[in-house]
C-alpha cells in the first residue's frame, strides 16, 4: 500500500514538473531582473504591451518594424475588457507591463489610481503632430500639466443602417426608436455608450448627467425594437449580413469594415450629437523599460504606423494630422470622415465610482427586464 501511494506521489511530482517545464515553446517570459550598469553588451530587451487583440499594435507592420528599429522583442498581453486591463495592473502587472491602451473612458481613473506614470512628451518627435483637441483632452492632463496619455486611434459610435433596405435618409437617433424598424435594431452592449446615446436621443442638456429615470424608460422602449445587443465586430456583422438587423449604433470601424468589403452601409452623424471616443497610449507605473516605452509611444504616433493602421481592414482613424491628410478620399469615405471629420462629438470620459455603478445598474436593469 505504501509503495503504491509513493508511486502515485512520484507520478504526481513528475506531472507537475512536466507542466512547469513547458516554457520552451512559449515566448520568453518578461524580464524581472534589474539591469546592471555596464552597458557594453546589448541585451535584447522585451517590451510588454497591454492591448486588445488584433487592434493594430500586434500586426506585422507594427511589431516587426519596431523590433527591427530598436533591436528588441515585443510581447503582447491581451484583455477582454477595459476594467480587466486595469485589474491586470492592479494584481501584479505593475513592474511587468510597459505600455497599455486605456481609452477616454478610463484614462482619468488609471492615473488617479496610480497605475500609469506621466509621459515626457518633449522627448517624443511625433507628439506635436497629433490632433490638438485629442492631445488636450481633459482627462489626459493633470493640473500641473503632466501628460498621462498620448492619443492614438479615435472614432465615433454613431448610427449606421443598410441603405438598400432603408430608403429614406436618416438624420436622427429617433430612427432607432421608430416602430418601422421593430425587431431589426442592434444596440451596443456597453453601459456607457448605451446611456450616452439615450441621453442624446432625449436631448438632455448634459449628456454626462442625464435624468437616469428617463434614460431607463427610453432604453426599455428601445428594447422592444432591438433584435440583439452586440459586443464585437462579429456579433454585429453576422445578423447584418443575414438581414436580421438593418439599423443600429456601431463603431466607425465596423461601418468601415462593411463598406470596404463592398456591402451596403450608410453611417451618419445624427443631429442630436454623436458619441466619440479615443484610445490613448500610456506608460505603466514601474514599467521595466521606460525609455523603450517612450519610443513605442512615439512609434505608435508616427505617420508611418498610423497610415498603415488606417489601411488595415480592421483599422481606425488616425490622430496624426499628417496621416489624416494623407488618407485617400476613398479611405476617408470608408471612415466616413469625408470631407471633414464630424464635430458635435460627445466624448466618452471617466466617471467617478458611484456614477459608474449607477449607470451600470440602469443598464443591467434594462437588460434584465
Amino acid at each position, binding site marked *: *500500500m505504501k509503495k503504491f*501511494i509513493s508511486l502515485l506521489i512520484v507520478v*504526481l511530482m513528475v506531472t507537475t514538473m512536466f507542466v512547469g517545464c513547458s516554457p520552451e515553446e512559449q515566448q520568453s517570459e518578461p524580464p524581472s531582473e534589474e539591469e546592471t550598469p555596464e552597458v557594453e553588451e546589448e541585451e535584447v530587451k522585451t517590451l510588454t504591451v497591454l492591448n486588445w487583440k488584433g487592434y493594430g499594435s500586434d500586426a506585422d507592420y507594427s511589431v516587426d518594424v519596431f523590433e527591427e528599429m530598436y533591436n528588441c522583442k515585443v510581447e503582447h498581453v491581451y484583455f*477582454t*475588457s477595459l*476594467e*480587466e486591463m*486595469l*485589474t491586470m495592473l*492592479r494584481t501584479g502587472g505593475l513592474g511587468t507591463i510597459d505600455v497599455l491602451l486605456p481609452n477616454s473612458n478610463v484614462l482619468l481613473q488609471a492615473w488617479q*489610481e*496610480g497605475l500609469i506614470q506621466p509621459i515626457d512628451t518633449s522627448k517624443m518627435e511625433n507628439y506635436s503632430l497629433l490632433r490638438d483637441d485629442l492631445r488636450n483632452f481633459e482627462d489626459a492632463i493633470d493640473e500641473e500639466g503632466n501628460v498621462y496619455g498620448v492619443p492614438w486611434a479615435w472614432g465615433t459610435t454613431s448610427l449606421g443602417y443598410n441603405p438598400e433596405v432603408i430608403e429614406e435618409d436618416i438624420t436622427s437617433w429617433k430612427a432607432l426608436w421608430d416602430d418601422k424598424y421593430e*425587431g431589426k435594431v442592434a*444596440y451596443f*452592449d456597453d*453601459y456607457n455608450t448605451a446611456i450616452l446615446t439615450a441621453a442624446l436621443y432625449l436631448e438632455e442638456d448634459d449628456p454626462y448627467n442625464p435624468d437616469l429615470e428617463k434614460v431607463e424608460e427610453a432604453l426599455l422602449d428601445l*428594447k422592444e425594437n*432591438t*433584435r*440583439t*445587443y452586440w*459586443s464585437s465586430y*462579429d*456579433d454585429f456583422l*453576422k*445578423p447584418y449580413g*443575414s*438581414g*436580421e438587423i438593418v439599423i443600429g449604433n456601431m463603431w466607425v470601424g465596423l461601418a468601415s469594415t462593411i463598406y470596404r468589403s463592398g456591402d451596403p452601409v450608410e453611417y451618419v452623424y445624427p443631429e442630436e450629437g454623436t458619441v466619440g471616443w479615443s484610445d490613448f497610449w500610456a506608460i505603466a507605473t514601474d514599467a521595466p523599460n521606460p525609455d523603450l516605452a517612450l519610443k513605442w509611444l512615439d512609434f505608435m504616433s508616427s505617420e508611418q504606423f498610423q497610415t498603415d493602421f488606417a489601411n488595415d481592414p480592421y483599422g481606425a482613424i488616425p490622430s496624426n494630422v499628417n496621416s489624416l491628410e494623407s488618407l485617400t478620399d476613398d479611405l476617408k469615405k470608408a471612415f466616413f470622415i469625408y470631407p471633414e471629420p464630424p464635430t458635435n462629438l460627445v466624448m466618452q470620459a471617466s466617471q467617478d*465610482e458611484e456614477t*459608474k*455603478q449607477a449607470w*451600470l*445598474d440602469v443598464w*443591467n*436593469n434594462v*437588460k*434584465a*427586464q
Partner: protein
Amino acid sequence: MTDNEKPISKGGTMILPSSLLFLCLSLIPLGMLIFFSFIDGNINMSGEIRGFTIENLTRMFSSFTFTKLMFKSVGIGILVTVICIVISYPTAWGIAKVVKSKYKNLLMMLIIVPFFTSQLLLIYAIMVIFQAKGVIMTLLGSLNLADSSTSILYSNLAVIIVLVYEYLPYMILSLYTSIEGIDDNLISASQSLGAGRWNTFKNIVFPMSIPGLLSGILLVLVPVTGSFVEPTLVGGPNGMMVGSLINSQFTVVLNMGYGAALSFVFLIILSIIMAVIKKSINSANKSIGGME
C-alpha cells in the same frame, strides 16, 4: 503490517491530497468571498478597506433585478437539465448495455471530441446552422413553416438549444458511469421473473443510476444557471441571465464587494436547490419502491 484489516487509517491518508487542495484552493477563496461580501466597494491597491457594510446584500434585493434574474436562470437551468436527462438516459443505456462492448470506450470518447475545440466555436457553428437564410431556416421556409428571413436566434429558445448542446456530454457520461455498473444478471433476472420494461426501470435501473443522475444534475444545472457567454451571444435583448450580472461587477466596473455578495448568495441558493433535488429524488425512489 496489518494489510488484511480494513484500512481505515489508510483512508485518512488517501483523502489527504485532495483535502489539502480543497482547503487551500477552495475553502480559503470561499472565506475571501464571504469576507468581501461585506466590504464597502473595493479594496484599493495597498489592500486597504474602506469599511464594512451590509449594503451589498440589501442592494441586491432592493431592486428586483437580481431576484428576477435568479428565478429566470434557475428556470432555464432546470429546463436544460431535464432535456439533457431525457436525451441522455436512452443514450447512456445504449452505450452501456446495447452496443457491443468493443465500441463502448470509442463511443464515450467520441462524445467529447466536439469539446476539443473551443466552446465559442461550437456556439458560432450552432448560430450558423440556425441563422436567417441559413440551412435550417431555408428548409423551414420552403416547407412554409417559417419565414426564412428571420430566425430563432437572439431568443431564450436559442440559449436553451445552445446550452443543451454544450452540457449534454456531462449528463451522458455521468449516467453512463452508473448504468454501466448495473449487473446484467439483475436485469435479465427481473425480466425473466415477468417484470416489464417499466418495472425493471423503476425498481432496478433507476435506483442504481441515482448517483450518476445526481452528479449529472449537479454538473449541468449549476454551470447552466450561472452561464453568461451563451445568453450574451445568442440570447437577444431579453436573454440576460444572472451570470452576466455577476460577471459585469468584475469586468465592467470593479465592484468586488457587490460581485462577491452576488456570488455568495448565488452559491447559497444553488446549494439549497441541489439539496432539495437530492432529497426529492431519493424520496421519490423510496416511494416507488426502488432499492436503496
